[in-house]
Structure formats: C-alpha cells, structure tokens
C-alpha cells in the first residue's frame, strides 16, 4: 500500500496525463478561489458572484466533456502507483455524474438567482460552500479508495451542514443545520470505525482488495463477525448520504429548514452521489468474484442493501402521508425515491454477465430523470412560496386558475414522481425493474421479484399523497389572488415538465447516454495488474 506522500512512489505516475483527466475538479477548485477573490476585486454583489460561479461551472462542464472522449475508451485509475487502488478514478461513470451534477448545479444557481439574489448579503460564502459540496460529491463518485471515500463524504457533508443553516437569523434553518450536523458526525464516526476495522483486516485501503478479501472469506463459507460489522459500518456512510432508512432522520428537517434552492440541491445531488458511490462499491465487489455462477456468495450483501432499499421507499412513502408542508412532503418523497434507486444498486451482476451494465445504467437514467422531476417540483414550490410566503399545501389551492403555467408543470412533475406513464418517471422506474429482472435468472430470483413487487406496490402507495397536491391545485379554488412569477422561473419549470413528457417518447438518446455512463464500469477497479506494468498498458489490455 502506497500513500501519496512517499516521494519514491511518484516516479511511475504519468502525472501530466492524470492532471488532465482530473482537470474538471481542478476547475471547480479554481472557481471556488475565484469566488473568494471576487469580493476583493469587484465587490460583494450577489449577481456578480453568481455570474462568476456560473462561468466556473460552465468551464468545468466544458472540461468534463473535453476529457470524456479520452476517458470513455481509456478509464484512468490515477494518482497512485497501483492502478487497482488509485486514489481517484476517471471513467465513464464519474464523468457522467459530473456532467449531470454540473447541469443540475446550473439549474440550482439559476433558481437561487431568481429567488435569493436580491436579498442575499453573503453570496461569496454561500457559493464557496455550494461549490465545495459539489466538489465533495464528485470526489465521492471518483474513487474506490476507502480513505478518499471518507474524505469525499466529509467534503460533501460539511459545506452542506453550513448551507442548510446559512441564514443565521432563521431559527428553523439553524435547528435543521445542527440536527443534520450531529447526525452526519455520528454517521461519519461509525463509517470511520468500520474503515479502520476493515483496514486492520485487509491491510489495504483499496475497495478492490477489500472486495477480494470479502469474497474469499464468504466463498469459504465463513461470515466473520468482524468483517460483517466492518462492512455494515462502511455502509453507513453512503446510506447517510442517500438518507436510507434508518439513517434518514436528518432529511425531512434539513430539507424543510433549508432554503428551497438548497433543498433542491441536496435532494438530488447528495443522494445521487451516495448512490453512485455505493453502486461503484457494489460493482467492485461483483468484479471480485471469479465467475458468474459464483455470485451467490454475495447474497448477504445484496439482501442487506435490498431490504434497506425496500424499507426506505416504503417508509418514505408512508411518512409523506400526513405532511402539510410541500417541502417536507417532497423530502419524504425523495427518501422514497432514494429507495427505488437503491434497489438498482442491490443488483449484483458479474462483469461477464449478460447485462452487467444494466443496473448502473438504470440508476443513471433514474438520476437524470429525477433531476428534471425534482427541479420542476421544487421550482414550482419555490415560485409559489416566494410569492405567498408559505409552502403549505393549502397555499397551492386553485393554482390552476391563479398560475396555470405553474400548475401544469407541477402536475406533470408530480405524476412523473408517482411513476405513471406518459411521464418519464415511469421509464425511470421501468429500467430499475428491468435491472432487477436481470437478476432473476439465477441466485437472486427471490430478491429480484421481492423488490419488484415492493417497488410497484409503492407506486400505488405514493399516488395518494402526490394527488393531494394535485387535488388542491386543480379541483379546489378559494379565490386566492393570481400569482405572478418571473418569466425565467416559469421557463425553468416548464422546460423540466416538457422534458419529462418528451423523454418518454424519445427515450433512446437518454438510454444510450445512461448506457454510455455505465460502460467499462469494472475496468478501473477490477483490472489485475502485474507489478511493474505501466498503467496505460494495463488499462488498454482491459479494453
């Protein structure tokens, strides 16, 4: 095991090349620095800061796309002498996530500009934290090294705690922030404990080594207590980010207390990062098994994640029933959706299996659609609550008359969240079901059909509380005044709704993109590399 600090180890690393593929992260850091520098150079104007941040995000996005071509055929496990335990990974998955995240970040910044730019005094600090959490999320999905995983989760979490309670005069936000932080700290501690246990047993921080060790132990018919405890503790970290039950308690409070742009950001980005991190670990474990038929040794892991997913989406849906605040209702809905997505993560497929990329593609597809659904739903909630000063469900009464251009996209987004055709939310669920179905061929049939039934029954459960909002918007009217919203906000939410409709009819490009994100999933983590062979050569071979 080699740590970065040991100078002798640097000799074999093609640093320049690696710096290029990781340049999006560097660009993001540069943007943060630029935001810090802004007040000194051009003043603290919120709009200027937002412009700088937008520019930085666009540059990051551009760099991501520029490096993609290279990375897609030649995934890099870099910044280490050992390609199997690289500190950072750049492959289709991480690049894909960066693209999604940056596009989503642009949407969130835009929402912020509409709603909060006028009243915000501490814009530079806000953006440093926002971009910092984005960087943390990118780190989370770009590694399969336990140390970097911990660092990534912390990097993503710490700024999140701060932006949840960013307005210090807001008591609710402060309370939410403290709850979030205490919960996060405990989860981080548990995860660190788990990592230390695992490191003690395996002697390496690489997830690939951990996976091999685990598979050896499990294949021998042993399930050592220490290893199981270590793995469970490790799971707590991503589960906290995903807000999977029972690590979800922070989620409703934080989402309700935070400003709505922040809620939008956390509801998608932090969960997506956690899910992809978990999925990458899962695929590493699957890659450590010798042959497709021996996958059943990982059954305990699959069932653990699967049951967690089933409980998460069921509980999230039921807990949403009594909510009166739309923000809080959508918080519980996001817990439920995390559960659906986590189901795709529970599908352990061997790299050589027929559809090995399918679960990850389903997850990416879901995340992309989820971006539109949540940006739309939270966007409408934001526009309504900024105008009426309340995010209660009653505040939406008669929206169809008061603001048809808000009500129609809201209906589309909510029905899409239920997962009914003709919205893209149905296809997102569909691909998860198909991914689960591909597990049904062998050892995982029971798990797969169990999860499929849980998923479809949950669709039914969730219908009722989404309909509550639809009902007050469309079927009731108490004569409240008309709502006028900024044209930019209307454009944003209507665009989201339009995408949800269009993506069902023409889903092929999106599916192709999701497939592309999940291609070469196993290369960066499972390549077995003889000592001394150059990194690039080994990776070429893996192609």
């Amino acid at each position, binding site marked *: 095991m080699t740590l970065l600090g040991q100078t002798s180890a640097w000799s074999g690393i093609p640093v320049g090349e690696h710096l290029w593929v990781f340049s999006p992260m560097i660009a993001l850091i540069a943007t943060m620095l630029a935001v810090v520098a802004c007040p000194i150079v051009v003043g603290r104007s919120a709009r200027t800061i937002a412009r700088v941040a937008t520019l930085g995000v666009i540059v990051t996005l551009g760099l991501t796309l520029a490096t993609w071509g290279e990375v897609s055929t030649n995934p890099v496990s870099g910044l280490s002498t050992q390609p199997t335990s690289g500190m950072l990974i750049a492959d289709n998955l991480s690049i894909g996530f960066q693209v999604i995240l940056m596009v989503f970040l642009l949407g969130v910044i835009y929402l912020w500009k509409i709603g909060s730019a006028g009243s915000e005094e501490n814009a530079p600090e806000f953006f440093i934290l926002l971009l910092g959490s984005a960087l943390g999320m990118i780190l989370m999905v770009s590694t399969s090294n336990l140390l970097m995983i911990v660092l990534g989760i912390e990097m993503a979490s710490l700024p999140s705690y701060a932006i949840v309670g960013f307005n210090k005069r807001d008591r609710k936000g402060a309370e939410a922030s403290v709850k979030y932080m205490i919960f996060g700290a405990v989860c981080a501690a548990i995860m660190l404990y788990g990592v230390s246990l695992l490191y003690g047993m395996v002697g390496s921080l690489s997830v690939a080594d951990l996976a091999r060790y685990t598979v050896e132990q499990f294949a021998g018919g042993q399930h050592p207590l220490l290893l199981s405890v270590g793995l469970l503790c490790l799971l707590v970290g991503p589960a906290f980010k995903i807000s999977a039950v029972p690590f979800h308690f922070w989620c409703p409070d934080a989402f309700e207390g935070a400003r709505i742009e922040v809620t939008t950001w956390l509801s998608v980005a932090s969960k997506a990062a956690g899910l992809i991190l978990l999925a990458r670990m899962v695929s590493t474990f699957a890659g450590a098994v010798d042959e497709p038929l021996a996958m059943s040794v990982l059954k305990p892991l699959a069932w653990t994640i699967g049951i967690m997913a089933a409980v998460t989406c069921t509980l999230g849906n039921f807990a949403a029933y009594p909510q009166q605040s739309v923000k809080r209702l959508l918080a519980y809905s996001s817990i439920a959706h995390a559960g659906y997505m986590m189901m795709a993560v529970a599908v352990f497929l061997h790299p050589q299996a027929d559809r090995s990329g399918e679960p990850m*593609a389903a997850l990416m597809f879901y995340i992309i659609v989820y971006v539109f659904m949540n940006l739309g739903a939270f966007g409408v909630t934001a526009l309504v609550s900024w105008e009426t000063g309340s995010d209660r469900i009653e505040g939406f009464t008669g929206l169809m008359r008061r603001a048809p251009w808000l009500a129609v996209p809201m209906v589309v987004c909510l029905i899409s969240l239920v997962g009914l055709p003709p919205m893209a939310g149905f296809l997102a669920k569909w691909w998860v079901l198909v991914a689960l179905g591909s597990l049904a061929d062998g050892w995982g049939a029971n798990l797969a059909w169990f999860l499929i*039934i849980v998923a479809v029954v949950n669709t039914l459960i969730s219908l009722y509380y989404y309909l509550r909002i639809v009902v007050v918007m*469309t079927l009731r009217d108490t004569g409240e005044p008309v709502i006028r919203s900024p044209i930019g906000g209307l454009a944003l939410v209507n665009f989201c709704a339009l995408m949800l409709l269009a993506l069902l009819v023409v889903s092929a490009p999106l599916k192709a993109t999701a497939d592309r994100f999940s291609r070469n999933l196993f290369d960066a983590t499972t390549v077995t590399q003889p000592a001394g062979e150059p990194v690039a050569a080994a990776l070429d071979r893996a192609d």
Partner: protein
Amino acid sequence: MSILTWIVFVPMLGALLCMVVPRRQIRTVAVAASLVTFLLSLSLFATFFNPAGETSGEGFGSRYGMLQHVQRATWIESKSFAIEYFVGMDGLSFPLIVLTTLISLLSCLASWNFDKWAINKGPRAYFALFLLLETGMLGVFVSLDFFLFYIFWEVMLLPMYFLIGAWGGPRREYAAIKFFLFTLAGSVLMLVALVAMYFYSDQAITAEMARQGIEGVASGYREGVIISHGTFDLMELATNPAIQNHFAASSTLFLGWRFAPLMFLFLFVGFAVKLPCVPVHTWLPDAHVEAPTPISMILAGVLLKMGGYGFLRLCYPIFPTGGMTWAFPVAVIGVVSIIYGALCAMAQTDFKRLVAYSSVSHMGYVMLGIAVMTDTGFQGALFQMIAHGISSPMCFFLVGMVYERAHHREINRFGGLWLTMPRYGTLATIGFFASLGLPGLCGFIGEVWVLLGVFAAAEKFTWAIPMAILAAAGVVLTAGYILWLIRRVYLGKEREEHAGFPDASGRETFILVPMALLCIALGVFPMQTVFIFTNGTLDAMLAQMARVIGMGS
C-alpha cells in the same frame, strides 16, 4: 403508416388543436376530431370486403395471430431487449375500436351544451382531456405490444381522473380519487407481470435455443421470422410453442408459485377492477354518479370493455392453463356480480346509480362467459361487451337528459314522463329494454350466448349447469328492476312538476337514434353485425388455447 395509428392519434391532434383555437370553436374542433376518427374507423370495414372475397371472420384467417393494418417499429431498444410500437387489429379488437370511436363521437356531441353545465369552467381543458382520453382508449385496443398496451392503459387514467374530478357532481373529488386508486391498484400487479413475462419468455427462448443448438426460435405466428430473445409481443407470447410450454410447465415457478396461474391472477386483478366485478366494483357507482353525462357514457360504453378485452387478449390466450386453474373462482365471481349487481340495482332510488349497478350485473355475464372457455361463451362475452357498450351509454344519456330538466335523480319523484316527453319516452323504452335483454334487442343475444356457452361447458366443468341456472335467474332480476324502473319513471299519471319539460331536442334525438337503431340491429342481425367479424379470431384463439391445455395435461 397504418390507419390504426391515425385512428389513435387524430384525437390527440384534436386535443392539441383545442389548446390553441378561439374559445368558441373548441367544441367544434372536438366534434370534428372525433368525427374524423369515427369515419376513419368505419373505413376499417373495408378490410372484410377485400378482393379476395373474404367477407367473414376469415378476413383474419384461421389461426390466432392473423392481423390487419399492422405497423411495427422499434421504439425503445437496449441490449437483447426491444419494445416495439406495434399496432394491429383482429376480430377481437375490431368491433371495440369502432365502438370506441362511435361512443366517443356521441358523447362529444353530448358535451355540446357544455356552456350550460353547472360547472362550465375551462372548456379548453375539458375537450382536450376528453380527446386525450379517446387516444388512450383506442391505444389500448390497437396495441399488441404489452409495454405499449400498459402505457396506453395508464395514460387513460389521468384524463379520466380530471374529467370526473373537475366537472363532476358534488362528491366528485372522492369519486375521482377512488377511481384512480382502484384502477392503479389493479394495474401495479400488471406491471409485475409485464416484467416477469418478458424475462420468463427470455428464459424459454434461450433454453429452446440451447436445447436445439440453434441461433433463434421460429416465431409462433409470423412466417419466416426468428426470435432470439424474450418479447413483449402479445401474439408471440400467446402462440410461440417454446414460450407457451415454458409458461404452462408446472416446473416454472415464480417465487415458489406456479407461473401461469400466478401471472393469470396478476393480470386478472387489473382487468377485474376495470370490468368491474364484485368485490372490486365499488368505484363504479361513485364514479358514474359523480361524472358528467358524457363521461358516464364513455365510462360505461368503453372503459369497462377494456377489462373484458384484457381478459380475452392477455389472460386467456397467454395463460390458458391459468384459466383452467381459476375457472371456478372466476365463474363464481361472474355469477355473484350478476346477481349482486342486479339486487343492488333493484334497491337504488337514484336513477343513475341504478344504471351503474346494472352495468356491474351485465359485466358479470362477460366474466362468466369467458370463464368457461367455450367458443359460444367467448362469442357471447364479446357480444355482450359490444351490446352493453351501446345500450348502457344510451341509458346514461337518457338519465342525463332527465337530470338536466329535473335537476334531481330520485326515481320515486318521477312518473308519467312518457306522456310529457313522447319521443324521449319511446327511445328510452328501447334503451332500457335492450339493457333488460328483451328478445329482438341487443342485450338478449349476449346473455343467451353466454348461458349456452356455460351449458356447453358441462362436460369440462361439473359446476357449469348450476352456474348457468343461477345466471339465468339473474335475467329475471334484471327484468324485475328494469320493468319496475320503467313503471316508476315513464308510466303512470303525468306529474305537475314535470309537465313543462321539453321533449328531446334535435341534438338529443340525433345522439339517441343511432344507439337505438344499433340496439335493434344487433338484436335482429347478430350474425351480420358482430359475429362474422369476431368469431374467426375467437375460434382460432380457442383452438390455440386448447392445444396448450392439451399439451399441459
């Protein structure tokens, strides 16, 4: 492009047009769109008068899977996985397509006086949703890819929900949500079946290829086509021997249960809710009573038929062994629906609720006829669906006309309406007698055919004769509540409070007369109007099913 595609999407184009035209033109656009759709669907009759001289059900050939106006295009593709836009028509779907376009046109005309309704806000939304609903319904009948079928099946929910919820009676919110929840509850298990049927057919095909050492398995119904993966093609699922053997084998398990009976059940629940049958019928009276008249017509005329169509298209041809396993429970549910529905109808004092319960009763015959799996039973069930699809929208429109004038639906407060409104009274009598099943009118043929079908199943099922007797007793109950209804509402002395009611207007007559004529035509010429189109396909389907059941035993 297949004409069926046009039939499905013309209403949707009309809906888009409704969004942009000036407010006063909306209803014209809507009627025009549904009229065009209806005319297009009439052109389908040409299929049967082709130069080959085939004027019977033979137009669809002698085996299940002969289709007309097919259009297939890959829609969603992934590795080893293709969802198709696959539409086509056979004797099973053909009459239902024409029925749908006809009832849609008539109920669109019934919406002509939208501006005078109690709730008349948002005609744009109303007509757009109405046309979207029509697209959804037609889509269900023409799509032959299970995935596409499911999409259309669900697409229909939302427009219906809003149409009941926004323009309905006092308890519209409750009725709309109940409709939505019940239907979705039924269809979530269909989604499980959708996934499972794909993966199990994939297993079947893969195993067959491995067994024979070949690259692909010959399609069950298309000449020269080879399939190498699982499929969503409803025809393929029903006709491919490899898939059918795998589905029917007792060693094929799903979570420890036998595959065919369980999948049959998953699908059955969804269609039974839609049909609806006891005990999942409770959404129907609520939805009917609260829905505006044209929506009730659609609901009774077309939506309920989707349940029966689902049985005949999915449950039985694909899982015939499941049908054998569940024959007795299904028949019991059918008979209970007949009798319970009739008894409930008898107890109603609300005119519209009575007609709603009579629908439950009539749909019970459909279920019973299908359950016994004889050719007469199938034919009777399909005929009953079509007959009810004509008579029951007519009854609902008749109720709606009275309600518009009287603003109440209390049966006991009416009386002597025939004297007040002679033209209306005559047409009403035809409609209700058709619903009653009077010989010479359409309701009779369906019921008799079903009963004959059940008797014919006596060799297969020992319980068939008692069932038939019970179901025949239901006919008496039906006669009871309809005759009693006619006496209370239309006969007797003219009442003061109703004396000023105008007789049926030109528009109303224009809506009622086609349905009245069809009631008579179907009753007098059942062969020429329905059976020649449907029997070929149904017989072929039964032959196909018999082969599979024979193999299984």
